[in-house]
């Protein structure tokens, strides 16, 4: 289970010669993601999604608030907490000069897995994501879809209980996207806890049990897609979002 409690993140930006201005990328954000649940994090560019996900993944510290992963706080033992999470971003690149197998081995080694378990797990994930044909190729030589499959494969090497997925299907074709969406649904049935950030409203509506709508660093709505649609008297989550925040429809796909 992931609990996000009153998270705020303050940054400084330059507004002129030597002048800096403080601003909140995220402000007092709270929600929770239960086991066996997919919670979508939706919002336009600059809404504060990536910062929030980085905080949840433990790679950034919040200015205020706390994140609990399976009731454990990063502040007390971040290494133990990180063993139970997996972070995948559509923008994150992989090492292009190593093969898929080498990447999977390296990632698993960081999680302290022994050689025997690594070999077993590699066989499982290679089969799961149909990577046999390119598993020994260098990542730099793979297509975008294949690379993203390798990215997902490295995420599940240590069989985490909690997933933090940021634009995981961004820029992928329908087939590659479907592979990843199927994997996410499959993990939910195993009781895993998933935060799924996306620009694609329809995609979120289809796979998320609940959604958190975020704009300008603040939560504007939280609930199941149906609940939000009812509250906003709309028929889909896209229209609900615009009803809540207004703004330019072109920002959201």
């Amino acid at each position, binding site marked *: 289970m992931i609990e996000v409690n009153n998270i705020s993140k303050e940054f400084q930006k330059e507004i002129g010669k030597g002048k800096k201005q403080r601003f909140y990328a995220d402000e007092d954000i709270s929600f929770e993601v239960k086991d066996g649940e997919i919670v979508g994090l939706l919002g336009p560019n600059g809404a504060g999604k990536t910062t929030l996900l980085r905080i949840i993944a433990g790679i950034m510290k919040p200015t205020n608030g706390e994140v609990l992963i399976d009731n454990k706080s990063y502040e007390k033992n971040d*290494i133990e907490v990180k063993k139970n999470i997996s972070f995948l971003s559509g923008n994150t690149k992989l090492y*292009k*000069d190593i093969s898929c197998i080498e990447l999977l081995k390296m990632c698993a080694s960081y999680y302290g897995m022994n050689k025997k378990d690594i070999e077993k797990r590699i066989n499982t994930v290679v089969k799961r994501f149909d990577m046999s044909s390119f598993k020994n190729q260098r990542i730099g030589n793979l297509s975008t879809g294949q690379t993203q499959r390798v990215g997902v494969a490295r995420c599940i090497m240590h069989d985490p209980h909690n997933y933090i997925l940021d634009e995981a299907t961004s820029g992928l074709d329908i087939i590659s996207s479907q592979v990843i969406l199927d994997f996410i649904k499959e993990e939910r049935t195993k009781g895993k806890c998933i935060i799924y950030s996306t620009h694609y409203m329809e995609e979120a509506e289809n796979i998320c049990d609940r959604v958190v709508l975020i704009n300008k660093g603040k939560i504007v709505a939280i609930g199941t897609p149906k609940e939000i649609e009812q509250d906003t008297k709309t028929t889909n989550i896209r229209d609900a979002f615009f009803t809540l925040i207004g703004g330019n429809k072109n920002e959201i796909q």
Partner: protein
Amino acid sequence: MKFNNIKITIFKELRGIIRDRKSLQKLILYPLMIPLVILLFGLLFDSVNESTYKVGINYALTTEEQEIIKKLDNISMKQYNNKRSLEKAYNQGKISGYIIKDDNTYKIYADTSQNSGEIVISMTNVYLDSYNQILGKTYLIKNNIDPNKVFNSIIIQEHTLTKDESNVMTNIVFSMIMTYLIMIVIMVCVVVVTDATSGEKERGTLETILTFPIRTSELVLGKYLATSILSFIIGLIAYLSSIPTFFIGKEFFTSYKDITFNTNINTVLLVIFVILLTSLLSSGVCMALAGKAKTYKEAQSSLQFITILPMIPYFLRFMEIDNYIFNLIPIANCGGALNDIVANTINGKTLLTIIVTTIIYTIIILMYISKQYQKEETLFS
């Protein structure tokens, strides 16, 4: 701190560098520079020492003049009819300078901005001074005056304090090689650090690593040690390759004949130790400087200036400035130490100062880096 995480990071960084074609090319080329420099300078010194410069003249040489010129290795004379033909020959590059004789006046023409012109001026002066003395002696003898009483009224004796005649050449050659050696260590650090820090940020792979159960200190230490290991290995290869190259050079180049390359085991071990110290410090300095760079290019430009540091002892040596304070200049002092070690002029106090200061600088830099890489503006800039 988990050593396994540091080990995985070191292996990851080394594999990344070795598999990147451009980086690998640099790592192979850098140590090759040392043998190349040794051979090129052997060729250059030999060509300077063995060159004979042609000097044009508009007069016929006397027997005495011919004898003097025979004894001078670097110049030969060629007679031309008049001033115009001398100028034409000079402009066509057939002669490096010319002498026009007008009664008892010898006018020397040469371009002193050129090395050949300088040599022509100095050698023709030697020739004309000698000839002037012969003419003087002949005159004195004709007039029944003992020329020894005129020319040798005082006796000049020259006693060199140089222990080894090859020292000047040895110092020039070794200074250059040791300077290049330190530069190579730094250049390898630059290649590895730019890839391991800003390269990783630019590629977006740093974010992935940070989600792993690894402490930032383990990650930074892994990257630092990978840089140190690789720069040390390349520095070591460069140094070791210089030893056989020198022995080969001695066979082919007369300039190297008298040079003795110190291959005493203590000297070799001391040189290796100083290379190791240089690698440890340079890696840290590079990581600290590249920390805030957002892109690969930004990191490269912020690291460029430290490749100049090893030049400091080289220039100080030529300017004959020797101040104990210079032993405190980081990295540059290691270059100075290497020069003194191979030239057998290092003293214990200087060596100890350099070792202690380098270790202190390295510890300070490592503390700075570990703090720097905890900051979000470093990790996500």
